[in-house]
């Protein structure tokens, strides 16, 4: 069969073969009406900030490439180019990871949280960061927010040293480090005392 000829159509749900696309469509309409969309073969599924994305990715694309360039979640930043700066940090299955050091195809089925997702949930970290100027040029800030969020998710009583240790993989050239410790300690206090609920909603002025 020449390459340009149309091959028998295959049902994306049950893999049954048909002679024509129209026949396949008829079948889908009858047999699979109301079903969830099928996952196209070869695609990966990423659950990002609670939403499923089915993506066809090149083997060499990093998770950062997909999140930043393909999905337009530009909060993840690239400061270095080799896992030295922490600016591209996202939370994957509860752990802070460097999205520029992971291939996207390895992340099939993973649940990922980016800084945008943290902000959308009005996490009190965001307001603490704003209040304490834990940013200057801001390029590295999302990486700090995601790293801090991952820390607070597993430890609501972090000490100053634990925070410094946790954030030591995030580079900030403007030298905002002291403010991050203050912001994270305050957030932990808010989370412990429940003050983060309701009254402490982040102001979404973006």
């Amino acid at each position, binding site marked *: 069969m020449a390459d340009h000829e149309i091959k028998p159509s295959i049902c994306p749900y049950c893999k049954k073969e048909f002679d024509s696309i129209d026949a396949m469509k008829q079948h889908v309409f009858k047999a699979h009406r109301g079903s969830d969309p099928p996952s196209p073969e070869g695609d990966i599924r990423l659950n990002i900030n609670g939403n499923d994305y089915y993506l066809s990715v090149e083997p*060499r694309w990093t998770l950062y490439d997909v999140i*930043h*360039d393909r999905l*337009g*979640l*530009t*909060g*993840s*930043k*690239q*400061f*270095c*180019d*080799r896992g*030295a*700066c922490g600016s591209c940090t996202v939370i994957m299955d509860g752990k802070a990871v460097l999205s520029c050091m992971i291939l996207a195809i390895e992340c099939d089925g993973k649940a990922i949280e*980016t*800084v*945008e997702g*943290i*902000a959308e949930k009005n996490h009190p*970290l*965001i307001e603490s*960061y*704003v*209040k304490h*100027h*834990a*940013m*200057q*040029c*801001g*390029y*590295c*800030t*999302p990486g700090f*927010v995601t790293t801090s969020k991952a820390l607070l998710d597993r430890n609501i009583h972090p000490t100053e040293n634990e*925070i*410094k*240790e946790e*954030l*030591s*993989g*995030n*580079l*900030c*050239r*403007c*030298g*905002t*480090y*002291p*403010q*991050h*410790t203050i912001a994270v300690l305050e957030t932990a206090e808010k989370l412990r005392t429940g003050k983060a609920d309701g009254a402490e909603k*982040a*102001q*979404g*002025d*973006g």
Partner: protein
Amino acid sequence: MQDNLRRDPFPLKTYKHIGERGPRRLDGYHKASGRADYTMDVQLPGMLYMRFLNSPFPHAKIKTMDTREAETFPGVRYVLRYDNPELPERASMGKLTGIYGDPPPLSGIAHFEGEPMGAAVVAVSEEIAEDALELIRVEWEERPFNLDVLTAMEKGAPLSYPEMYPDSNYWNNGLFDEMTQGNVKKGFKQSEKIIEFEFNRRSHTWIGPERPCGVFRWKGDVAEVWVKQQRPHLVKKNLSTWYGGVPMNKIQLHCLYQGASFGGWVQVPWNMGPLYCAGFVSKKTGRPVKYTFTRREDFYGESMDEGVYRFKVGFNMDGTILAVECSSICANQIFPVFNAVNHIRESTRVPHLYGKIFSIWINKGPAVPTRCEQLPATLSLTAVFSRVAAECGLDPVEVALKNDGFEGHGKDRFEKEKKGLGFPAIDSLKECVEKGKAAIDWDDKWHRPGTKTLPNGRMHGMGFTWTNEWDDSLGSAEIAIRIERNDGTASILSMGCDNGVEAENTYCMIAADELGLRLEDVSYNPQLDPGFFRMSPDSSTNLSVNGWAIRHASRILKQRILEAAVAPTAKTQRGSMRPAFPDCKPEDLDIVDSVIVKKADPSEGISVADFVREAGQSGPVTSTESGGFRWAFTEPLFAFSYHVQMGSYNPENPRPHLTRQAHFLEVEVDTDTGEIFVVKTVNVNDVGKAINPMSCEGQQYGGTIMGLSRGKFEEMIYDPVTGVMLNGNLLDYKIATTLDVEGPIDTILVESGMGYGPYGSVGIGEDVGTVMTGLLGPAVFNAIGVWIDDHPITPEKVLKALGKI
């Protein structure tokens, strides 16, 4: 035009927002939530990506270049060659190119390893562009090179930049800068003691978190451009001369949030070359083109303090310094303004000074002001003062106070000068050191060098330095303010680079207090291009120029609002309506909390929002007049102003630097490993008036961390055989992390009101990062009792100084 050489004659009577702690950052939510857009984030439909060839040699010329394979690589849309006949030989590239001459947009000759040059590949993705670059075959003419200033000075040394400097590696074939005050020979004769010493500063760079990048899109004859640039006005100026000329009113700039570059990238003389190339290819392909540099390409130039500094200092044993002579040999410095003894001249009564700088061309990137050009001068002041204090066995704070002054004049003349300018007799240095000493417990903790070992086995050291505050340089700004229809909010209009110093909120605070508006009713987006430009954080000034322009514009606008409040409203062909305040004169009114009120009875008022009224259905001002009904509306309420500052660093400095800064450092040195631990830092800055205190503090702790990072770690290492930079990445070139400035940083602000800026303010952005860079030297000396004259002070150098390796 405000005469700002003297004390501010027209201050505000009361401040509401100015000086307030904690107004919400304008950029805060954007940056914390990932919603802040940077040029690096820009993606446009159909956009192509441009990457540059890098020279593998430190000095080489392209003999032949074969780009055919790259041109046919799938996904490649254009390969721009340096020898493209449509590229001009030279193009206007920026403020500093006068020294180099205008460069070509894409060079065929490399003067340092890694230089982006020769060819630019434009493809549908960055990866494809990168892959295609590998397919370019170049036959190079390798040339001999220099990496070290001392060997480059020798007779018979190869020429580093023969095209520009065909006779020798000396800038201008001789002395770069020379400065004389008094007579050093006389000073040395009068001195009880004379010492000589030398120190080295190794090359370091800015590390801009956002890599250099830009996006160029032609929309017919309109050039739409996104820039990572501290000086967007220069992009527009230069771009207007490119491609045979582009009218200024057909250039639309976007200057999004900027991932900082601390002056470095923007000062590189040919930093606009890649943008020229992007625009060229955008025109050829009809597609938007984004150029990006790699992280390694951002290690493209260096700070202008790399070099060797040789001193001879004469003084009396009571700490009075009589003469300082300095010969410094610096690498690739690009403009001749900053002598190494400059801060000693500006800030002290030392009568006899002589300083000379040789700028020697070597095959590394250009050395440019990188927070900032005062590095050679502040490193020198710190070295001289701490040496003299040590030689005299005196507390360095005492030596500072003894020598404070300006241009060879002592305290009496200094006080007279302040008085003549209308300032009260405030001793800025004394105030700074008293506050700093108390905060760090100096009197208890300072000790003779090398005399204190702590229970943990480490040696304990205290360091101190000081100088003037210089962030009120010459500059200019054009700024407008508009009152918006519908809600009466105010928008500040002027494009500038927002690289995070929180200047925009500061300007809003000034406008709010001057206009009588609530702070939340004033906003400023400097990313828009309204045709007005301000000082971005650049040229050592920002607030002290822009603040005046905002204040002028606010005062004009307030007067306009009050005049409109007593004038007829709704003026059309059919007549007009009664004024909002028919029985008042403008001077009877005021604006308080965004409400226009009668001074005599502030309870009678109308909000600015109600005064300007809503936009109409038909056009922005009013809806159709019908049935006898008409809207009340005001004329557009808009004002603009400008400020041209003849501040410090004018060729003829109009007045001495009056404000001071003092910094204190406590360290511990592990004598087994050579590690230095920073236990506590205290920064005291007399900022004249802290308009936005949290923003000032950000520059203090931020500058401390950057400065100590440079002092502890930062150096670009080159292979002496190949001239290749070995650590052009963030794994091998270390910058400080959260763990590297171990102790607290106390930030103290002094407000003497003696700056050039509005309300007596002086900027702070460059100061701390620059001054702190050299403070590790005296602190480590105080700990181990041995001078380490090679910066950065790494553990290896500490162990060598201790004789352990």
